[in-house]
């Protein structure tokens, strides 16, 4: 079961790279290479033109005028002569021209020559690559013709399967007694697997939430310190009074939250992640159910091991109504989770700012709480309450 085994494949090179295909590829590379060769020739021509032009430009100012045939269009000439032999109009690019002397023109042309040389170098590198590619194709073709084979070995590791199986095993171990009572456990195998997966996901989420809580706590600390120092610096008495009011409100809030039943709190901050609470809640519920069914002792001992597992086992053994309700509850928890995750960004820290607390009247207590509840991802208020 889940043992890793070494598998292997032997494929002949000629089946992977048919000779025709390789030849085609080699041909393509050859074509590319010849293309590049043409480009290179063109560049070389440009360079030759450039050097000859440099010579010409250097030579022209030696005399005051040169008798030439002045081109008139492409197919006609006039007999004429060059004048102003030290004045050149040079294209700079983008149809901008400038008047230069012979020396300056030569400098420009030399710079042009340099850029051409660098182009030639780049092209040479490309051609070298192509040549290497061509030689590789040739060697592949010859190897394929010789009948070379490729051997590929790999270890098959079906880790997901193993994990799920081990998960189901773990699940079954604590409930041996119950398992005896159960009939057709294998039928529920798939269900179990799904539940174990769900459990894993929930754990991950819980861990993520814990991390976040820590982060938020730190955030809050920083904020508190900041606000304290700010307020100390700014104003004294009035602000302190306000702060006291706030704290009193917070104290009140804590008491309030403690006294309040969990359901109500849920309603209050609808989007709040209430993972642990709901779990505990469910657990209590379920133990109650167990008490009614007379299976109390066993589940309680198991309760210490883990909540989620118990829920799963219970759902199986208990009446079908709970069976139906339990997954639903889980689902609701998860949906709230995802919502929270999607909007976890920085809204929390914004709410923690002092402006919110500055709303000083006692009447705002409930409103502020409600407003925080109406906005998504407001675990902040709860943590604040618990902290202070």
């Amino acid at each position, binding site marked *: 079961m889940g043992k890793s085994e070494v598998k292997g494949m032997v494929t002949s090179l000629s089946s992977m790279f048919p000779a025709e295909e390789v030849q085609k590829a080699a041909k393509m590379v050859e074509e590319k290479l010849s293309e590049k060769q043409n480009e290179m020739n063109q560049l070389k021509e440009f360079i030759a033109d450039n050097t000859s032009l440099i010579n*010409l*430009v250097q030579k022209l100012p030696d005399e005051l005028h040169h008798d030439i045939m002045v081109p008139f*269009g492409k*197919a006609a000439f*006039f007999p004429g*002569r060059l004048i102003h032999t030290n004045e*050149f109009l040079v*294209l700079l690019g983008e149809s901008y021209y400038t008047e230069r002397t012979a020396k300056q023109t030569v400098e420009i042309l030399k710079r042009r020559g340099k850029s051409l040389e660098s182009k030639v170098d780049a092209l040479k590198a490309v051609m070298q690559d192509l040549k290497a590619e061509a030689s590789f194709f040739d060697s592949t073709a010859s190897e394929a013709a010789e009948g070379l084979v490729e051997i590929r070995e790999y270890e098959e590791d079906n880790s997901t399967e193993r994990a799920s199986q081990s998960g189901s095993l773990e699940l079954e171990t604590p409930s041996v007694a119950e398992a005896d009572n159960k009939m057709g456990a294998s039928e529920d195998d798939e269900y179990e697997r799904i539940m174990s997966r769900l459990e894993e996901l929930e754990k991950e989420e819980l861990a993520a939430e814990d991390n976040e809580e820590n982060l938020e706590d730190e955030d809050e600390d920083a904020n508190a310190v900041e606000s304290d120092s700010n307020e100390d610096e700014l104003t004294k008495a009035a602000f302190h009074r306000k702060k006291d009011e706030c704290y009193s409100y917070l104290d009140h809030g804590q008491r309030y939250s403690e006294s309040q039943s969990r359901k109500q709190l849920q309603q209050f901050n609808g989007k709040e992640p209430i993972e642990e609470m709901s779990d505990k809640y469910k657990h209590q519920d379920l133990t109650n159910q167990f008490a009614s069914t007379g299976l109390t002792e066993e589940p309680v001992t198991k309760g210490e091991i883990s909540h989620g597992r118990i829920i799963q086992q219970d759902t199986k053994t208990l009446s079908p109504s709970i069976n139906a309700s339990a997954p639903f509850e889980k689902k609701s928890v998860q949906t709230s989770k995802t919502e929270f995750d999607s909007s976890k960004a920085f809204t929390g820290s914004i709410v923690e700012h002092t402006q919110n607390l500055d709303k000083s009247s006692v009447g705002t207590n409930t409103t502020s709480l409600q407003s925080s509840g109406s906005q998504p991802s407001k675990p902040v208020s709860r943590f604040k309450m618990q902290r202070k």
Partner: protein
Amino acid sequence: MDSLRQEKIQKFEEFVDRRLKPDVVHAIAERDKIFDQQKIFSDLRKNIENLEKNSVTSLRTLVNLGSEVYMQAEVPDTQRIFVDVGLGFHVEFTWSEALKFISLREEKLERQIEEYTRLIASIKAQIKLVCEGIRELLQIPEEKTVEGRVF
């Protein structure tokens, strides 16, 4: 029989791909060259007519030395013009002579263009014909077998 047909089809396809299509490309390139020539001569004619109209006797222009480097040039006498008559020969003309020559030349170029256009059309028609032949080779034998069964 089947292999023979396959061979024939392959031959036809090769003929189209290796012979006819390159021919078309070549012919089109040749015709484009002649179009260029036509443009050159029509430009020259316009320029000469322009000179005539403005009765220009001397002219200053910029000469391209290569790589877009220009130098001023002076033409003291514009009455005589040297026109390319082909094969690297240039003939000294007066303006009226040049215009006459250019019109003759344009006529000739026109004829050449027409010739090439016809050539291109005929090659294209041949390509179409061969393609049709391939299509027939692929289809008609099947029909024949059907007929044979019917008979």
